[in-house]
């Protein structure tokens, strides 16, 4: 069976005043139906560009240089804006943003905003006009209730700033499900929340995946979250996938030196990466060879000569490191 979402050696560059930035430089990932894939990386490694590339909303000056984004067997990269809007966004791929306060338009009522997407993308049940809108409201209220948002009936009439952070995130999770998509992409949805709320949201997401028959692409920089939530894992460094495999396997036997360094300097799997010496190479000047070589404790001369090939580690994970070639 073909995977639900497969990103294939994707390369994206952005032209800036200072030169061309190769933001994504051979990223690959695979999300099987019904599973949760965690994408982990430091800030600046290209996570958000990856999401933008999948959604077809690249920033100004960005272009896809190579690769594919296969979604249910179709290459999203060849879709026009109109096709993406008509057939993909919301209706088949839902989206949960990082900071719910910033992601909601502050000057419109929550209901207005959520219904706007449903108006175009909710499945056609034959109703039109007022009736269709009424059904949308009904469905939203039901979803909000499911998300344990208090007073779901009046919630739609309120403005974003009138909710707490956790409630807002529940609103947006509800919104991502409103048009019954098969895939939901979540962009660090718990970063802006306190630890307790974060935990509740993760639990909720876990339940929803089973309940709604979803697949979830969960982007984060937090291994702890990945361990708690995900089935599979994909580690990105400097615009490249360096290790990908089932969560259990990777966490027990991290194969790539980068993954090991991350886990080693953070035994408690906390959210920070500051422990690794050196810096991520600038996307404007990618070095030859392995991107991690400069910071890698195990680097050999050949690491700096040529890009390491994809290999299979003993854990079963795919690794990009000469050690396994």
């Amino acid at each position, binding site marked *: 069976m073909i995977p639900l979402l497969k990103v294939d050696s994707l390369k994206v560059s952005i032209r800036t005043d200072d030169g061309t930035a190769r933001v994504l430089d051979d990223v690959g990932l695979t999300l099987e139906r019904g599973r949760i894939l965690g994408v982990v990386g430091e800030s600046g490694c290209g996570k958000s560009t990856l999401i*933008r590339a999948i959604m077809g909303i690249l920033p100004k000056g960005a272009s896809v240089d190579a690769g594919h984004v296969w979604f249910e067997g179709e290459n999203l990269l060849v879709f026009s804006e109109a096709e993406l809007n008509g057939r993909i966004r919301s209706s088949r791929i839902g989206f949960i943003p990082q900071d719910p306060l910033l992601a909601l*338009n502050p000057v419109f009522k929550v209901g207005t905003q959520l219904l706007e997407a449903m108006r175009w993308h909710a499945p056609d049940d034959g109703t039109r006009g007022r009736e269709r809108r009424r059904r949308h409201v009904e469905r939203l209220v039901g979803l909000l209730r499911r998300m344990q948002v208090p007073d779901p009936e009046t919630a739609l009439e309120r403005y974003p700033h009138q909710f707490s952070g956790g409630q807002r995130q529940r609103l947006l999770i509800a919104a991502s499900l409103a048009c019954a998509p098969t895939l939901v992409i979540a962009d660090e949805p718990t970063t802006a929340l306190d630890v307790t709320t974060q935990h509740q949201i993760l639990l909720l997401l876990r339940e929803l995946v089973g309940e709604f028959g979803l697949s979830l692409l969960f982007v984060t920089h937090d291994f702890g979250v990945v361990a708690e939530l995900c089935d599979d894992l994909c580690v990105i460094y400097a615009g490249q996938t360096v290790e990908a495999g089932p969560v259990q396997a990777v966490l027990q036997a991290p194969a790539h030196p980068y993954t090991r360094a991350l886990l080693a300097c953070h035994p408690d799997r906390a959210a920070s990466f500051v422990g690794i010496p050196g810096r991520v190479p600038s996307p404007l000047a990618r070095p030859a060879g392995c991107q991690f070589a400069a910071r890698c404790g195990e680097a050999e001369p050949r690491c700096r000569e040529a890009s390491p090939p994809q290999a299979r580690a003993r854990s079963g994970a795919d690794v990009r490191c000469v050690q396994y070639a």
Partner: protein
Amino acid sequence: MLRFVLRRCALVLPSLLGLLVVTFLLIHAVPSDPAVAMAGDAATPEQIAQLRLQYGLDRPIWEQFAVYVGKVARFDFGESAFSHRPVALDIVQRLPATLELTFASLLLSVLIGVPLGVAAGLKHNTWPDHLLRIFSVLGVAIAAFWFAIMLQLLFAMNLGWLPLRGELSATLSKPPVVTGFLLLDSIVTGRWDAFADGLRHLLLPAVTLALGGLATIVRFTRSGVLDTLQNDFVFYERAVGYRWPRLVWIYVLRNSLTATVTQIGLLFGGLIAGGVVVEAIFDWPGIGSYTVQAILTGDRQVMLAVTLLVGAVYAAVNILVDVAHGLLDPRLMERA
């Protein structure tokens, strides 16, 4: 909402009083003797002395001020030294013409300026944006009187499409006064000939006056849109598939207009003052030419009244701006 407006109004009163003090002192420092001016060209010194006594111009300035404030509180702005008509009457007759012109030009500049500003914002740093930026600066930089004369030459003289001057053709009779606003009165009384004629007369002065405002509105809408586009919610709205035109013209625009609305408030004051030149060139019977006349003849009562009036209009418009801000962004209303 009501409380918000009332509180703003209460805050305005001391400012207006301050304005009154400043202008009163200022105008009374002007050396020209209103009595000399009032008496007219052929007056004798006795006539002048008589007038000075009659109008209390020989009293100390604080006493004159107290008398004046007392009168203003009863909406009595005194009598023009030159026309010998009550200033309040002149203002009631002339203000509608100026407001009509001001509103028309604001409407023009908003209707044209906002879409252009949005377009420039969306096309940031491309040729259309550069052109619009230069155009909008041009609008601010061009001297209104020069532009007005060019418009007259083109549309009134060479093409003959629009009238050259005034607010109504000399051969048409004025519609009966109901509100004092010529166009409104024409509609109310069903004088469609006067309405069409008045509209044609309004066009050139309104376009001239709109130019500076148009440029400002383009600039601020552009930067508002640029700011808004940086926001996460625009990405979110695109990601969940908002249709582009609605996204831009409803969801982005409403967030981008705060600065533009502020500017409209500032512009309004400027438009009334800027109308001075336009009203002179097009013989528009409004408050602007009245003010110039008053200044040129040193008519103190009129200068005081007009300054106070413009200050009051300015304050009122700024209250409206605050209300508009509140309507645009519900968070502001709550905070207030």
